[in-house]
């Protein structure tokens, strides 16, 4: 009940963020139910129906293999959610943990955060590219690579936020009550980080989409046959003059989803503890 009320208050009066939320709900539904909704098999090649214009039965037209773009787009929603959530989880589990522990255990933190500094010297996409050269192109590897790339930023952010909370009087009070390290970290500090983490997660989700699309475009992301919005753009870009719809639809889908996620993150950011606002890396 309380959660519902707070979601209402966060998005009250923010028409665009509300629309964004609705759109993201659509994407999520499409991701879950794509096998049921998709009118065609996204992998099915039809050499006769190559590059057909949008219409019936191919709502978004077909690509140069004659695959149904609408069905591929629906399955693409799946990749979007998978990569977004996957990257968030990887980033939070690795970077988040490193950042939090580093801030709490100062000595360990000194060493770990220097390591993070070193990794931060590698620009995000460059790091992703390098890692992808070492790994095979697969969905799992793409998720891991993007997650790892954002792990450094996440570590930095959580380091800063945990440090602030560690200096809080209620943490001192818990120490005086005799609370141990685990209790302070997970009972007193972590619950206070949940809302800023949600905000950060929404921005990582959005960034991850753009990174994944860029990797797909460079031919270093998901395997080319996998239906993702980035691959749809990348595979069909040479047909842009002959069949512009092939780029309009997946492009619009990416932009809408990233924009929605950013709007949602922005709305949530305004509702969190103002002390954490500067720590968040977002749009």
């Amino acid at each position, binding site marked *: 009940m309380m959660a519902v009320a707070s979601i209402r208050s966060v998005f009250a009066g923010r028409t665009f963020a509300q629309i964004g939320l609705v759109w993201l709900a659509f994407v999520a539904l499409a991701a879950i139910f794509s096998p049921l909704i998709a009118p065609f098999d996204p992998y099915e090649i039809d050499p006769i129906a190559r590059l057909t214009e949008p219409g019936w039965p191919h709502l978004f037209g077909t690509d140069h293999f004659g695959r149904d773009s609408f069905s591929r787009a629906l399955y693409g929603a799946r990749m979007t959610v998978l990569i977004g959530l996957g990257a968030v989880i990887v980033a939070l589990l690795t970077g988040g943990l490193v950042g939090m522990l580093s801030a709490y255990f100062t000595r360990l933190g000194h060493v770990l955060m220097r390591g993070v500094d070193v990794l931060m010297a590698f620009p995000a996409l460059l790091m992703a590219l390098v890692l992808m050269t070492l790994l095979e192109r697969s969905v799992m590897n793409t998720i891991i690579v993007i997650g790892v790339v954002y792990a450094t930023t996440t570590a930095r952010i959580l380091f800063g936020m945990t440090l602030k909370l560690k200096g*809080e*009087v*209620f943490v*001192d*009070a*818990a*120490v*005086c*009550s*005799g*609370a141990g390290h685990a*209790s302070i970290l997970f*009972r*007193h500090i972590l*619950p*206070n980080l949940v809302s800023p983490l949600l905000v950060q997660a929404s921005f990582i989700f959005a960034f991850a989409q753009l990174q994944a699309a860029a990797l797909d475009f460079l031919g270093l992301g998901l395997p080319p046959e996998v239906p993702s919005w980035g691959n749809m753009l990348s595979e069909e870009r040479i047909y842009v003059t002959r069949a512009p719809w092939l780029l309009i639809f997946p492009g619009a889908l990416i932009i809408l989803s990233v924009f929605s996620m950013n709007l949602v993150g922005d709305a949530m950011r305004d509702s969190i503890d103002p002390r954490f606002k500067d720590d968040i890396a977002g749009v």
Partner: protein
Amino acid sequence: MSAQPLLDVRDLKVHFRTRGRTVRAVDGVSFDIAPGEVLGLVGESGCGKSTVGRALTQLERATAGQALFEGQDILSMSRRQFLPLRRHIQMIFQDPYASLNPRLTVAQTLSEPLFIHKIARSRKDAQARIAETLDLVGLGPEAMTRYPHEFSGGQRQRIGIARVMILEPKLVIADEAVSALDVSIQAQVLNLIKKLQRDSGMAMLFISHDLGVVRHISDRVAVMSAGKIVETGDKSAIFEAPQDAYTRRLLDSIPRIMPLKETS
């Protein structure tokens, strides 16, 4: 002064190293507190009075010196060794808004020390003790399920005091415990602290910058300046016949209201 002080602090030093500079926050402070006695520690901002309190609760590591609590040196103890003693040495903090975890209900906050120190055997037992303690500080049992943001500053400070009293400590360190409160609320909380101290017979180190408040609550007073205690004595001696020049200047600086004629 009784033969065996409850707390005997000898030559306490707390130095901080920042950017190659050493800040001598506390630089050789000695005092003692008898059981049931209230010692006021007064001084201006940055004189190190809060650091003394933080060192005695191990929130800050002492650089040198001893603090004998019932004969045992608490400064040299490890975190683990000190744990059982925390029950007897408790702290009330200044900021009632920051000293309660916003994500925990009052009952959760108050039950934490009970379970850590194994005072409550069951949830039911804990509930009963919490209700009792809340009553002691002037709050009803309905406060238990509520979160800190639902209370006013004065009420939050009462919750902070309840967290301390629930352990029935022998020594309470009150660090600017009423400084953040409005005057009318400050009076209520001061009365409460004084009553609880008298009823329970606990000793107290009352740290404050406010001389009036210190006079009101203390038996003896120590005046601190630049990391050192410049004068210690019974409160009447300190306030009526200060010996040290700094104490005199401090007392002279306080704005006074002319003695009022009682009209009613």
